């Protein structure tokens, strides 16, 4: 079960240490929330447990460097989250209007995305599913199959522009 990728050690750089520190701080804060105290002893214990978990996961479960795969900055994540909440509420009100008036036109459309990273594509599909009114059915490469509650057009580009909103722009920017 030992991973063959891990035989040659990764270079230790300042960048990598900084990333580890950031993840460890996050783990320590979550540990503090779970144990309901932010006393220094608890935080240090949480940091130790988080570091051990991090190294064990790195060595035994993940076959490659996850930092390169799941690269998503902290502040970018926060901005994305707030944007997601705004979109959820906007679409929620429109869905409410459609429920009350009963104007439904459910259909499946196919849209294309310009993202090429599998992680970002799955994040986009997740956001589309979370926004009221659309559910991702299947993904295949860069094509997404989406159930759309108010299907006004079946053209992939036109539908994609309405459904994706500004998620794709936010995800494209590194």
């Amino acid at each position, binding site marked *: 079960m030992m991973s063959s990728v891990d035989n040659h050690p990764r270079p230790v750089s300042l960048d990598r240490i900084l990333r580890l520190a950031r993840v460890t701080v996050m783990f320590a804060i979550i540990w503090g929330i779970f144990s309901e105290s932010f006393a220094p002893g608890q935080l240090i214990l949480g940091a130790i447990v988080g570091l051990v978990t991090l190294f064990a996961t790195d060595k035994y479960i993940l076959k490659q460097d996850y930092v390169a795969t799941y690269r998503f900055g902290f502040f970018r994540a926060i901005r994305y989250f707030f944007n997601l909440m705004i979109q959820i509420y906007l679409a*929620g009100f429109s869905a409410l209007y459609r429920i*009350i008036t009963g104007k*439904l036109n459910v259909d499946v459309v196919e849209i294309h995305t310009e993202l090429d990273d599998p992680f970002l594509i799955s994040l986009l599909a997740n956001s589309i599913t979370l926004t009221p009114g659309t*559910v991702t059915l*299947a993904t295949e490469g860069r094509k997404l199959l989406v159930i759309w509650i108010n299907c006004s057009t079946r053209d992939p580009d036109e539908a994609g522009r309405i459904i994706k909103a500004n998620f794709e722009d936010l995800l494209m920017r590194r």
Partner: protein
Amino acid sequence: MIVGAGYALIAFGLFFTATGVYSVLKFQDFYSRAVITSKVDTVGFTTVLIGAMLVSGANFFTLKIALILVFELLTTPLSTHAIAHSAYAAGYKVRRSGDV
């Protein structure tokens, strides 16, 4: 004041959730139910939990509710997608013209 705002948010979120439950009982075909319910339910869930955070005030209670909110937002799309994909792969179709 803040507690009052929390109560208002909770009532509003319950209204959203009630609309979702009403629509799951009212709509007649599976795909519109799948689209409408889970989503309106997400909005209602988020609003209710934000209201609960305002009511409880600034303590560990609020932070734990925030964690619940984040976990739920991460996992709800997974289950919705799994159900819709399962129905689609089995060939359950609602309309002849389109793909559904």
